[in-house]
Each structure stands twice: as C-alpha cells, then as structure tokens.
C-alpha cells in the first residue's frame, strides 16, 4: 500500500468496484422489478389463455348438443325413444364430447332416451333439479352446478340444451361429464413449461366446490371447499377482485393467477412456485453479475496498466537520480514529457542536474586554477632553495644551509599536498581513467624502490626488494607506481634509522598477487586503525621525521587500488605491514 502504484491501483479499483456495485444494485432493483412484473404478467396471460380454453371447451360441448337437435325431431315431435337412442348412439361426436353419457328428456324433464344404459334412469323425472328449472325459465342452454347423479350416484356436470318447435319447448338433450373420470381442463394445461410444480385448479365459487384440484380428484362424491382460513390457497383464489400475486402456501411461495370461467361461477387458478417462476429473472441477474465481474476484472487490468504507466517514469527517474548520485559524470537528463506532474519533476531534476554539473565544473576550474596559482610561486621558491642548497650560488654557511633545507622540505611538502589534492579530487570525481595492462610485479617493485632510494638514503633506511620474476598483474602502471611510492615512502618515514623496508611479492591463490611493504617501526597505533584510510588522517600531526606527509596518501592509494579491482590493508607485526592485492594477469606464463 505504500507504493504509489498500489495506491493508484487501489483508488481505481475501489472506484470502479463501487461503480459496478451501484450499477448492479440499480439494475437488480429496476431491471429485476421490471422482469418480475413481466413474469407476473406472463403468468396472468397464461392463466387467461387456459381459462379461455376451458370456456371454449364448455361452449363447444353446448354447440355439440345444439347441433344434434334437428336429428331428434320429426314434424315438430321428438322421435320415438328407440329411434332417439339409436340416433344418439350413432353420433360419435356426441360420445366424444360427453363420455359420461347423452340423454334426451321430454318436455316434462323425464329421461326418455340414453346412449349408455344406467339402471332406472329412463323414466326418472328431473324437473326438481335447479338446472332444469333454469332451462325452463330462460329457454337457453344451461350447465348445472356440480351435482350428484340421481341414478349414477357420481359427481357430475350436466349440460342441457332445449329442443324447440315453433316457440314451444318439446324436450331437451343433455350431456353428462363425470367429474371423477375426466377433466375439463385442456390437455396438458398448466403443464406446458412446469411439469410438476405448477398447481392448476378450478373452484366453483358459488357452491364452494372443487371442480378440479391438484391433490385430490372428486371420486364418487363432491368435494366441498374447506372453510375460510383453513386453506390459504383457496382463500386467496376466492378473494374478490384479486390480482396476480404472491402467496404463501404450505410453507412455500407461489405466484398465483386467477380468472373466471365464462357462463359459470367458476374460478380457474394457476399457482406457480415463486422460485420456479422467477428462475429466468435469477438467471438473467446471474448473467448480469457475471458480466459485472468480467468488467471489474477488466477494470483491474486497466488500473494495473494505468498505474504502471504512471509510476514507470518515476521508477525511471529514481534510477537516473541514483545513477547520478553514484557517477555524477554519467548523469543523463530525464525525458521532459508525459503527465504534467512527471514532466515538472523531470524538468526540476534536469535543472538540478544541470546546476550540479555547473557547480562541479566550477569546482574543478577552481581547484585547477588555485593549484596553478599556488604552484607558480612555489616553483620559484622551491627552485631557488634547491639551487641554494646545491651550492649553485656559492657555498652557504652551515646555519643558512640548514635553514634553506627546512624551507625546501616544507615547500616540497606543500607541493606534494597540492599534487595529492588534485589527484584525490580527480579520483573522487571519477575522472581518473585507469589504463589496465599486464604489469610485471618484479619490475614495478624495482622501479619503485629505485625511485625512492634518494629518500631512503636521506632517512638512512635500507630498501630490500623480494619479488619473484614472472609474476604479472592487471594494473595501471602509473597508479601502481603511485601506490607503491606511497607505501614505500610511508614505510621509510616510519622506520628507525638504519632500519629495513622489505618489499615482498608473491602469488596468492588462486588469481591474485600480493605485494607487502614492511617496516620496522612502531606499527599503526590501535586507536588509529579504523581511520588510517581516511582523508587527512595522520597518526601524529606536526613536522616530525615520521609524518611529513599530506595525510592523503593512503586515502588515494585505497581509491587507486580499488579502482583496479584490488584491495589494500595492513597488519602490525614488529612494524607495520601494508599489503595490496591485484588480479593476476592472464598473460602469466606466456611472458
């Protein structure tokens, strides 16, 4: 979380997640509501269609009876019973429409013909039945309420169509549907899309009877509706003016749709389990959620990419700045492009870098001109003193000579200090270029000893080289010489009069050569061990014999040796032993 990239990712992700969440919730609420309404509407329409089929079914049966009427009369009279029976038996469509039987009644409502024999039915008078009364009073076809057959003793519906002749009712034809045997629901009604769970039922509102019910069929008796409050489904169906709605039934939710059947005081009802009805809604919401998840994932990827593209210039800037810190000369400018903040950072950095560069140049110019200004007078001081001491201007009195020597030594030291300062400045600025080549250790050691002989004589110290021939290292000869000069002159300065400075070289396994410079002095004091390679570090200040140095020699030596992939160190063992290691040259053996 602490990286800028992670924060950007977090912000973008959070924002997009909230957006997606908000959209999802809105969609769930409004789309879900719309779709729920649509499903309810669909259920209602389906119910109405089925109700219409039931009504149609009933109308068709009435029609069937009506159509058969002309066959039953001749000259304004009903046919003889035998003839009637043969007619109604022959008419297939009548049997198909009314498997429960066809009857013909006379004007007094006495059964005179039947197509299937039921014992005692012929001759029975039905004038007391409600639907016969209705038939006489209206003169129109009627359908009875569910009744118990007088002779068949099973629950049935009776269809009656009057037979008129010249405005006078001469009889009627009746069809019977046994409620126990057949359904007046269309085939597969309510089972088109929900095989088992949708309940389809028909109730007789007026007589509080089941015409069709899901769990029990009227067998040999009429099935009355349970009293109010006992069956929530029935209660809901009978509720007047009821809309399609959700109800609780036997611990489950159902979507209930009702409609009235034509001509009868019946209610057709369909109750679909709510979950099942809403399945398409759930499916589409799931689909929606799935898409949302996909979009979120996409947003995450985009967030990651955006964050990366935002932070990449910063990472690059960091790298460049670090590179500048490590090697100021190699510093590159940052590209001044991209988003405004990044661009401004780049511009600021480039300005800083430029100023730093200028400052660096100023410093270098300063040091080089100061050193020139210092050296110019020193050149004449030192030159004059040297010639005086050498007797060019004639023999000097002893005291004058010794004073001239003091002056000379100090001017030499001043010169050495300026040289070391310049060297060190160059080394630190990384301007010192190393020209690595294969150097003979033996030769380097001998040259260095040769170069320091005059100093050794002055300090009355013996220089003893001990370097095997055939040892070669990879080094810059000038730098190696500078380091050896420094170590040898240090050793000379710290040696007692008449002492020895040994310069040894040997191969050190596996790929290094080690050169050691040993003196017989007092060694490096313990308190000074940690600071010995620091700038201007000297164990004892002042102008004693041992310490007429600048304090930069070992610091420079360390920089030089490390610049050549070598190492430098020391230990005390009856004097100070300074060692350097350098990589062996691959030319070893071939030289």
């Amino acid at each position, binding site marked *: 979380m602490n990286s800028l990239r992670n924060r950007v990712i977090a912000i973008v992700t959070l924002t997009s997640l909230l957006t997606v969440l908000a959209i999802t919730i809105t969609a769930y609420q409004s789309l879900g509501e719309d779709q729920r309404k649509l499903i309810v509407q669909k259920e209602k329409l389906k119910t109405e269609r089925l109700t219409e089929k039931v009504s149609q079914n009933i109308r068709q049966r009435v029609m069937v009876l009506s159509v058969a009427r002309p066959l039953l009369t001749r000259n304004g009279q009903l046919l003889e019973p035998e003839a009637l029976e043969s007619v109604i038996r022959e008419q297939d469509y009548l049997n198909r429409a009314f498997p429960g039987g066809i009857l013909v009644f006379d004007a007094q409502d006495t059964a005179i013909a039947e197509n299937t024999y039921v014992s005692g039915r012929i001759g029975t008078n039905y004038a007391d039945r409600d639907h016969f009364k209705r038939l006489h009073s209206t003169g129109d076809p009627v359908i009875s309420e569910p009744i118990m057959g007088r002779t068949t003793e099973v629950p049935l519906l009776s269809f009656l169509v009057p037979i008129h002749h010249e405005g006078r009712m001469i009889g009627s034809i009746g069809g019977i549907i046994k409620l126990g045997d057949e359904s007046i629901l269309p085939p597969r009604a309510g089972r088109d899309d929900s095989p088992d769970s949708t309940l389809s039922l028909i109730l007789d509102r007026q007589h509080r009877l089941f015409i069709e019910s899901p769990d029990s069929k009227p067998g040999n008796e009429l099935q009355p509706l349970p009293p109010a409050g006992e069956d929530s489904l029935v209660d809901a169906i009978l509720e007047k003016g009821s809309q399609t709605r959700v109800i609780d039934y036997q611990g489950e939710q159902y979507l209930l749709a009702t409609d009235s059947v034509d001509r009868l005081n019946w209610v057709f009802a369909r109750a679909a389990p709510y979950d099942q009805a809403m399945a398409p809604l759930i499916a589409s919401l799931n689909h929606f959620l799935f898409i949302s998840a996909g979009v979120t994932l996409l947003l995450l990827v985009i967030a990651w990419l955006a964050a990366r593209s935002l932070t990449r210039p910063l990472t690059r800037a960091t790298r460049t700045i670090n590179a500048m810190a490590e090697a100021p000369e190699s510093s590159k400018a940052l590209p001044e492009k991209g988003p405004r903040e990044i661009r401004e950072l780049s511009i600021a950095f480039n300005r800083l870098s430029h100023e730093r560069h200028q400052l660096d140049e100023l410093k270098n110019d300063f040091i080089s001109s100061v050193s020139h200004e210092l050296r110019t007078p020193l050149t*004449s001081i030192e030159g004059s003193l040297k010639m005086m001491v050498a007797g060019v201007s004639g023999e000097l009195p002893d005291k004058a000579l010794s004073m001239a020597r003091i002056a000379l030594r100090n001017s030499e030291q001043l010169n050495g200090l300026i040289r070391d300062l310049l060297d060190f400045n160059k080394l630190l600025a990384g301007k010192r270029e190393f020209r690595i080549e294969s150097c003979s250790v033996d030769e380097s050691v001998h040259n260095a000893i040769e170069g320091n002989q005059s100093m050794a004589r002055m300090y009355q110290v013996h220089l003893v080289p001990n370097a095997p021939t055939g040892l070669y290292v990879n080094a810059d000869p000038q730098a190696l010489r500078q380091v050896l000069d420094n170590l040898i002159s240090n050793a000379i300065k710290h040696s007692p009069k008449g002492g020895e400075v040994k310069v040894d070289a040997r191969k050190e396994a596996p790929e290094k050569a080690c050169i050691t410079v040993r003196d017989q002095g007092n060694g490096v004091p313990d308190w000074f061990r940690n600071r010995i390679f620091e700038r201007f570090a000297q164990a004892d200040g002042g102008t004693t014999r041992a310490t007429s140095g600048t304090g930069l020699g070992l610091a420079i030596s360390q920089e030089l040796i490390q610049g050549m992939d070598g190492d430098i160190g020391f230990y005390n063992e009856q004097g100070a032993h300074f060692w350097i290691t350098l990589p062996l040259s691959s030319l070893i053996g071939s030289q």
Partner: protein
Amino acid sequence: MPELNRILYVEDDDDIRQVSQLALEDVGGYEVMLCESGQQALDSVASFNPDLILLDVMMPDMDGIETFHRLQDQGALDGVPVILMTAKVHPEEMARYREMGVVDVIPKPFDPMTVSEEIARIWERYHD
C-alpha cells in the same frame, strides 16, 4: 646530432624566469634568451635564432598555445623543438599538446637542478 646551445625561454612570472635562468645558465650551461610574453618571443625569435624553445602555457594576453601556433606561422619552428612547461598536465591536455606538435612537456614545478639534464634528454630523443 647538433649541439644544444641556445634556448629561448618564454615565461610571464618574473621569479620563475630568474630561477630558470639560473638553472639553465649556471647549472645547464646554456645560452638563454628570456622573454616575458608571447609577443616578445615572436619579436625576438628571428634575431636570437634558438636551438630549442621553452614555452610556459598559462600566460596573460597570449598563452603558450597561441604563441606556439604563431611561431609556427612565422616559420620559426623549422627544426626547432618546443617544450611546454606547465602545471596543467591532465592526460587529455597532454594528448592535445602532442597532437599540436609539441616535442615534450615538463611539468611544473620542475627541479632546477635536474631540468637541464631533462632538456638534454629530450633534445637527444628529438634528434634520434
């Protein structure tokens, strides 16, 4: 190999000029003409007719480099080697000096007791 006798020495610093004169005349035994500016060197090079020219680099008005080029333009450097004497001895500067056609560079500060020998060595190498 011709003998080295006459040296034209150009140096703006009075003290160094005096020290150098001592070093070159008394220690080295050369015949030396001292010039305190590049212009003076240009004026007197023909009459003095030196065997070798010592040239300081850092001088006001006309520095050693310009003096060198103008001497060259005058045709005064035919067979006359030029040695620069300077404290500016960065490797890149040294390379530039040699490219110019300077024979050698003696870094300042120089040792007056040995500078004559060094000049003699350079003279020998030049005529090798």
